[in-house]
């Protein structure tokens, strides 16, 4: 295994593009090192991205959004008060990943690129309308977060391409987001179902919404029908029931020991309702 420490993303992309064997990018390493240890993936070339300038930064962008470096660990995300105030759903999703120790290393970018349908930080990013800056050997492009996962453990990134930043849009006024997951324990588990809701209000009325579901399909899903169920409403009981029905209808989960198809489908609706209520109260100014 060759260990590389490029100083730019372009160099990293060129190393990857020129490699003939198995290549892995190293950010937090909480998935890569486990796969290495298990012998599941032993890279020929391991490209450590943490020597690239800016990878630990959380910076305000010109349009009022945020640019989050690819090596920012969960614990730094959680400690960033301005980001947490604007995007509490994104931050709480990441904070559910692993233990305190894992939070010291694990990153949003790694959680996304690992390609797990149950990744806790991804529904929040999808609901937020986040995108990623992708650097390849031939240049950069911007891709919506929901277009990155292409199946369990797979992404749409081409050989040589890597994510060089996470981009959150400007939050704007009267808006809130939330992420909830179901696990049978209280901590340290993988989502059986996850749901994120981001919405904006005009007075009491929802004017914009995005709903994303995790662990109920081969990839984290954006569910436009669930968002449509609450837009134009004041999140009354009828709207919440329609939201739950639309979320459940979007599920195509697996049946396994952690949750049956029927259970995951029902819980998706329940979590969508609860997350929407939290997002709504946050949009009203609730800081919890």
């Amino acid at each position, binding site marked *: *295994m*060759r*260990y590389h420490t490029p100083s730019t993303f372009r160099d990293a992309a060129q190393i990857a593009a020129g490699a003939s064997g198995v290549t892995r990018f*190293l950010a*937090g*390493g*909480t998935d890569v*090192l*486990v796969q*290495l*240890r*298990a012998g599941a993936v*032993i890279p020929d070339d*391991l490209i*450590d991205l*943490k020597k690239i300038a800016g990878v630990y930064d959380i910076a305000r962008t010109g349009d009022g959004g945020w640019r989050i470096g690819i090596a920012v*660990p969960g*614990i730094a995300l959680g400690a960033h008060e301005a980001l947490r105030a604007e995007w509490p759903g994104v931050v709480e999703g990441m904070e559910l990943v*692993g*233990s*305190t*120790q*894992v939070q*010291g*290393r694990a990153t949003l970018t790694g959680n996304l690129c690992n390609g797990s349908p149950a990744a806790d930080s991804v529904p929040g990013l999808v609901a937020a309308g986040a995108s990623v800056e992708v650097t390849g050997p031939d240049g950069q492009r911007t891709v919506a977060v929901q277009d990155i996962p292409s199946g369990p453990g797979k992404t749409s990134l081409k050989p040589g391409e890597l994510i060089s930043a996470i981009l959150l849009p400007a939050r704007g006024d009267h808006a809130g987001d939330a992420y909830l997951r179901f696990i049978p324990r209280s*901590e*340290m588990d993988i989502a059986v179902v996850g749901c994120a809701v981001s919405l904006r209000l005009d007075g009491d009325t929802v004017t914009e919404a995005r709903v994303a579901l995790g662990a109920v399909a081969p990839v984290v899903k954006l569910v436009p029908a669930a968002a449509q169920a609450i837009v134009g409403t004041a999140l009354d009981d009828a709207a919440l029931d329609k939201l739950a029905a639309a979320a459940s209808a979007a599920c195509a989960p697996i049946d396994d020991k952690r949750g049956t198809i029927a259970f995951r489908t029902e819980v998706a609706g329940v979590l969508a309702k609860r997350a929407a209520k939290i997002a709504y109260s946050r949009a009203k100014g609730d800081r919890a």
Partner: protein
Amino acid sequence: MSKIHVTTVVNGDAVEFLADPRETLLDCLRDRLGLTGSKEGCGTGDCGACSVRLDGTLVCSCLVLGVEAEGKQIETIEGMADGATLHPLQRKFIEHAALQCGFCTPGILVAAKALLERNPDPTEEEVRFWLAGNLCRCTGYDKIIRAVLDAAAEMRQEAA
């Protein structure tokens, strides 16, 4: 496979070692530097027995490559006592009998110290969540939590 020369600081002492790039920081601490206080329970970041601080951040040393330690500051369990004087957490673990086999203890002590530096007055719930990534198969956790809370009280100079 060529080894990489790594210069780092462990518990305040400058050290250097040669690491195969596949070796974890835990491997390097134990096998290259002889610091066997950090334990390998799972090797996959689940058990916390290998907890160390990397530039102040609590991490599993099994999820860090040895070569990533270059230029960093590392704190391990070996740096916790001041000579023969135990850290209050170490003393309270003995007083409360907060260990049986002891395999998880170094990681829990390192993790608990990180917590108390960040939050000198944690609730029981905060201690339990902070230490959720430190698995103990002997004690059932109760004595561990009591020892941490008691040490916190002593460090705040309050009687528990």
